[in-house]
């Protein structure tokens, strides 16, 4: 093998190495946002699962006599979706988002006030003997 051939081959190997390095860099760049996006999602998922467990144990503790008020309260608090509606209405310049947000705020408000009020009415009726 003459030196010239060796030099050519060495050059092609170094080219390939450079190409591989470039690929690796691109992959790392592509992976970075995925990892960055996955982390907050995992955090939210953790919170979600923990809350499911909390809900499970708290709700089994609810006395069956109060299952209707439980539905009233859960109804009211599930309307916390109003937070999303407020953000859409207040933060956005888009007319569509403002309209959708306004409708959502109104619907959720019916539920929040109605849910808490009807629960209050129910709970006020539960009295003890002689009470």
């Amino acid at each position, binding site marked *: 093998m003459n030196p010239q051939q060796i030099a050519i081959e060495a050059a092609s190997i170094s080219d390939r190495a450079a190409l591989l390095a470039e690929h690796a860099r691109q992959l790392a760049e592509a992976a970075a946002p995925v990892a960055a996006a996955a982390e907050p999602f995992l955090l939210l998922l953790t919170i*979600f699962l923990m*809350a499911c467990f909390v809900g*499970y144990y708290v709700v089994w503790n609810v006395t069956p006599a109060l299952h*209707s008020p439980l539905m009233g309260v859960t109804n009211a608090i599930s309307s916390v979706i109003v*937070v999303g509606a407020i953000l*859409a209405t207040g933060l956005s310049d888009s007319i569509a988002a403002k309209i959708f947000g306004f409708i*959502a705020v109104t619907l959720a408000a019916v539920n929040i006030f109605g849910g808490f009020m009807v629960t209050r009415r129910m709970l006020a009726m539960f009295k003890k003997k002689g009470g």
Partner: protein
Amino acid sequence: MAQTLSTLAYLVASVLFIMALRGLSNPETSRQGNLFGMVGMGIAVVATLLKPGMGAGGIAIVLLGLAIGGTIGTVLAQRIQMTSLPQLVAAFHSLVGMAAVFVAAAAFYAPESFGIGVPGNIKGASLVEMSLGLAIGAITFSGSVIAFAKLDGRMSGAPIIFKGQHMLNAALGALLLVLVIAFVATGSPVLFWLIALLSFALGFLLIIPIGGADMPVVVSMLNSYSGWAAAGIGFTIGNLLLIVTGALVGASGAILSYIMCKGMNRSIINVLLGGFGSDSGAAAGPGAGNADRAPVKAGSPEDAAYIMKNAQKIIIVPGYGMAVAQAQQVVREMADLLKKEGAEISYAIHPVAGRMPGHMNVLLAEANVPYDEVHELEEINAEFAEADVAYVIGANDVTNPAAKTDKTSAIYGMPILDVERAKTVFFVKRGMSSGYAGVENELFFRPNTMMLFGDAKKVTQQIVQSLQK
């Protein structure tokens, strides 16, 4: 309000919501719990309104929406009759579902407000979460509308079944999945609204085959869905409070559905596939039983009053029929008079006695029945053996011993109240018709059973009059 502060406020609100549910473990702490819930919601709303970047115009629109919705909600809650509570709850669920749809739409058209991208270029993960929130919200909406219509008598409670129904639902479900994948890949607005439309159709189709008798399960299930929809939106906009609350509500509804299913010895799948029970059982005139059975013993309200006057221990078994006849108040009057005669009164409630979980307890509480006289099935079932009288009013299937003995019966395996063990059983009924499950109650033919034929309210009123003599 800075980002950290609003996150902190959301955390406080989440804890308050958990405490609101925790308070319901006892009627004494429940009122305080409800207050915690209201405070939590107030904190959440105010913290959101104080976020940086909130324009005055936006805040005004929000306050207008809150005022309009709040007025409607308050008026509805004040006016509703407690017998119509299930309809109201179903209607409220539909609103949560619809609100979820609109928030998803707002997030789609103004993603920059939630930091999930710019219009036309939203993060893939956010699109997945958005389509989940959208689909569950839309299914909750149309499903709840059907549940409302069935409970409110605006449409027949009879199951609507057609050939290939389950195949159609499965096909639409698969199509929904395809649409979601295509939506995530393209972010197209057309696909967004197609997902919404298809989900509306699916919610509608999923609930129509379910009969009126299974509505307690459906209402609980839709309660659960409304929670999952809120959680889905929470993931979309990266909001901790929505995620926590959605999980709490989702878990709560799921547990209630489970309790209701267990109360009927049905699996949730069996309920969802539908077709069980119809609006009215085959009605027969009084006394028309099977020829080979012992004759039915019918008594007069005066007979019943005489026997109960001399009874020591009386257990009242109310069913939804009592609520339909609006007889709660007069039943409580009867109980008061009997207490004066020295009798011990308690009430036995079957898990599926009302049209939603815990409905019967609310109806009795409304008639001023003290809650410590009202007992759940497991607590009181052993006491029937010591009872002199079981007064069954408006209930039927939940007392049928066939559930324990007859393996061929449609209600076999369902937990029942052992009223047959009482010395005397009074059945207040209009006629000999069977209950929702369409099963004849062999209890009617027992020697210790006395039928009191007539309207639940009138019969009980006549007993009250005899007792007053």
